[in-house]
């Protein structure tokens, strides 16, 4: 165990108990899960005596689980039909498609551990009278059937009682009838908490306000799926005043991974999983270094995930947070394709940095910063004022300070911003991929 204490100092987020749990999941997977016993698959070291052995365990990817689902990735003798088993898909398409099964009780436990970083949110969610939740984001499939306001609520209620509100795969184009229906259902369902995409929710609230309708009361709002901008959060705060609002990082495969604390800093759950922020060549990331999060489940005897590449990019620190939580501090930076790479800046710029530069503009409803070439960045925004000159000048000035002088920066006011293929409108998108884990190990 002495080795662990050294590692804890070197590697932010390393947790000894979680590591031992991950090793147990790995041994279980090798004994009971067909995918990990497959002939021709690299098996990793015969015995795991410590992190050095662990580093030789092969990484897995989304495609491994999708391609072998369910027969190859469920433990022998287990089935999807067992009570309390949730089969999860996701809004991803093509190679981003997720197929996974997880026990509801495990998801609940992971959520509870994560929520320790935000006691008021924990109390609202776990102590809520109804115990019910609702979800508002782009539908899981892009088919228009999912968006139809004629789908009955029962067909959109998940196994754990979560009501998926009707929505469109394009938040800024949701018709009023659908928005009204979502609001009506939210009021009728009266969930203890709502899990929502911030941009989609802010749009819903704007349109309700424009129609003279009040936002349905909700005890807590968890903003997830896409980075919540300050502009969206201001709108949500205006209309949902008493609700506890916090941002969280959730994954279809695992559930809750991180949550914002009352101080506004994000904490990573490194107890329910063994988390490894990995940089170039699989090297453990240094504190604050951009890294891909690799996750191993702990205690999953249905479909353990072993060294699973999430594709999500984080920075993790080992400094304490003033909020008092002992879960490590992190920042979720998005995925490849959501960070800007600009000349003269050694590290990519994430949505959080961009959002800080944009700021909380009351004249702004929504914005998107996009990059097609290294030296060209565009900001498009939907204003709520007619004269946009001062707004645009300010935006350009602040983004210029962030991006530097070597980037051609253009700004334009638009009526509408399109969502991505998964139906989500991200504040920051780029055609230039950022994959720190796939970079060569530095010499």
């Amino acid at each position: 165990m002495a080795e662990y204490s050294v590692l804890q100092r070197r590697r932010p987020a390393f947790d000894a108990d979680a590591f031992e749990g991950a090793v147990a999941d790995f041994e279980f997977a090798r004994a009971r899960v067909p995918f990990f016993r497959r002939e021709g698959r690299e098996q990793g070291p015969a015995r795991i005596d410590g992190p050095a052995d662990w580093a030789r365990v092969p990484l897995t990817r989304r495609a491994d689980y999708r391609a072998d689902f369910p027969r190859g990735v469920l433990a022998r003798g287990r089935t999807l039909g067992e009570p309390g088993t949730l089969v999860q898909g996701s809004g991803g398409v093509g190679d981003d498609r997720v197929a996974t099964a997880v026990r509801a009780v495990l998801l609940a436990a992971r959520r509870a551990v994560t929520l320790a970083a935000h006691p008021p949110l924990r109390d609202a969610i776990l102590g809520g009278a109804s115990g019910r939740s609702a979800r508002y984001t782009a539908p899981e499939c892009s088919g228009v059937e999912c968006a139809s306001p004629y789908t009955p609520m029962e067909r959109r209620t998940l196994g754990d009682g979560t009501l998926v509100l009707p929505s469109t795969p394009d938040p800024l184009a949701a018709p009023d009838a659908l928005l009204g229906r979502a609001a009506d259902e939210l009021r009728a369902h009266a969930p203890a908490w709502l899990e929502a995409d911030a941009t989609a929710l802010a749009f819903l609230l704007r349109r309700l306000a424009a129609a003279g309708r009040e936002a349905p009361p909700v005890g807590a709002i968890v903003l997830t799926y896409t980075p919540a901008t300050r502009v969206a959060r201001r709108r949500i705060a205006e209309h949902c005043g008493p609700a506890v609002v916090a941002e969280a990082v959730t994954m279809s495969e695992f559930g809750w991974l991180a949550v914002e604390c009352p101080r506004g800093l994000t904490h990573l759950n490194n107890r329910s999983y063994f988390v490894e922020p990995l940089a170039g060549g699989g090297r453990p990331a240094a504190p604050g270094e951009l890294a891909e999060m690799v996750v191993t489940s702990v205690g999953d005897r249905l479909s353990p995930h072993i060294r699973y590449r999430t594709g999500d990019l984080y920075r993790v620190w080992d400094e304490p947070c003033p909020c008092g939580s002992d879960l490590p501090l992190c920042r979720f930076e998005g995925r490849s394709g959501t960070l800007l790479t600009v000349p003269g800046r050694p590290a990519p710029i994430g949505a959080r940095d961009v959002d800080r530069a944009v700021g909380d503009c009351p004249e702004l409803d929504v914005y998107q910063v996009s990059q097609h070439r290294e030296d060209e960045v565009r900001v498009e925004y939907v204003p709520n004022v007619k004269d946009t000159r001062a707004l645009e000048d300010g935006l350009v000035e602040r983004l210029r300070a962030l991006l530097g002088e070597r980037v051609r920066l253009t700004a334009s006011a638009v009526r509408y911003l399109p969502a991505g293929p998964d139906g989500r409108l991200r504040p920051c998108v780029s055609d230039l991929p950022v994959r720190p884990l796939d970079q060569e190990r530095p010499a």
Partner: protein
Amino acid sequence: MIDTESVTDLPRRVRADFPILGRRVDGRDLVYLDNAATTLKPRPVVDELTRYYTEVSANIHRGKHRLSETASADFEAVRRQVAHFAGVRGDEVVFTLNTTEALNLVASGLGLGSGDVVLVPFDGHHSNALPWRRHARARHIPVDGSGRVDLEAYEKLLRGRPRVVALSHCSNVTGVYAPVQKMATMAKEAGAVTVVDAAQSAPHGRLHFDDVDFFAFSAHKMLGPTGVGVLCGADGALSLLDPPNLGGGTVDWVDTERYQLRRPPHRLEAGTPNIGGVYGLGAAIAYLDRIGAAALAAHDRALARRQAAEALARPYLRVLGPVSPSADRSATISLAIRGVRNLREVARILSDSYGIMCRSGHMCAQPLVDSFTDNEVLRISAYLYNDEGQVARVFAALDEIVETVAAPA
């Protein structure tokens, strides 16, 4: 792939992207100047069409399997991309067969009757006149002697409280941009539904209207595939339209007695659409977007100026429409040749002996052409891969041809 460093050498930078421009016509370089009819396709558009048929190929909105979801997501992503390009919302975009079908959809869907008056542009395409003539009483918005819209006469026509005002943003014959923004606002003040044919302006990135209820354009005129058009209906206008066709994709729910129409735009897209074509349209818009609307417009204006200068320098040519420096024109110019009746022969010689493709005929705007000449016209229409040298080349070729085909003075 394109480099957007410079506006002035746009053709040089993009030509390699167009495989057909590598083709030789009897040993000569191909000069394509029939862009008002349809445009050439860059490699990314061809590749995207191929990608759909080789990697996806599934139907949309009809399944949960991986290929169908990919097709649905890609198709809807292009709808949002089109919306962004056109300055409307994603649910305000209907995919049609082409601009003609889009305009017919509006003309047939508004519930017009023989007592309703529709104003149509005198310099408009047949597709922006005949549908209105079929469903209502059409009145022409006249152009003045120079080919510009006669705004005074237009204002008088509006006093008749027309139900619809149909406008052409850019004439496919004269290349002149009409002041559609001003005209649309005037029409709205008169209480009319406003419709704009944007087939000739969309390729140059000139969209984003106020006070326009409907506008339409075609993919194939802006580097995209044939068989895909777009109808935009802003601010709920699409819900005014009675769907001309019903069937798969248009309804949410059906029993033996009743059915519930799906929300717009889906209720207006009956049956399986041109999915591959929509993929190609997405690639075309992405390509144009990388160049940028400002660069496209600047190039268009530069070519228009050069066309006008070359035409004015030749006394044997008559130009349909205004060519003064102040005229807001696209790089489309239509000509009559003094002493030459058979313009089809001229177009054929340009093609076969010079490798220059341009069009002769009435350009689907016969009333306008007939008001200018008792003959057909020859149209030269340029786009982003054409340069001023090619414009000069076609006029130099005309000098040679006219010498041999003109009737003796």
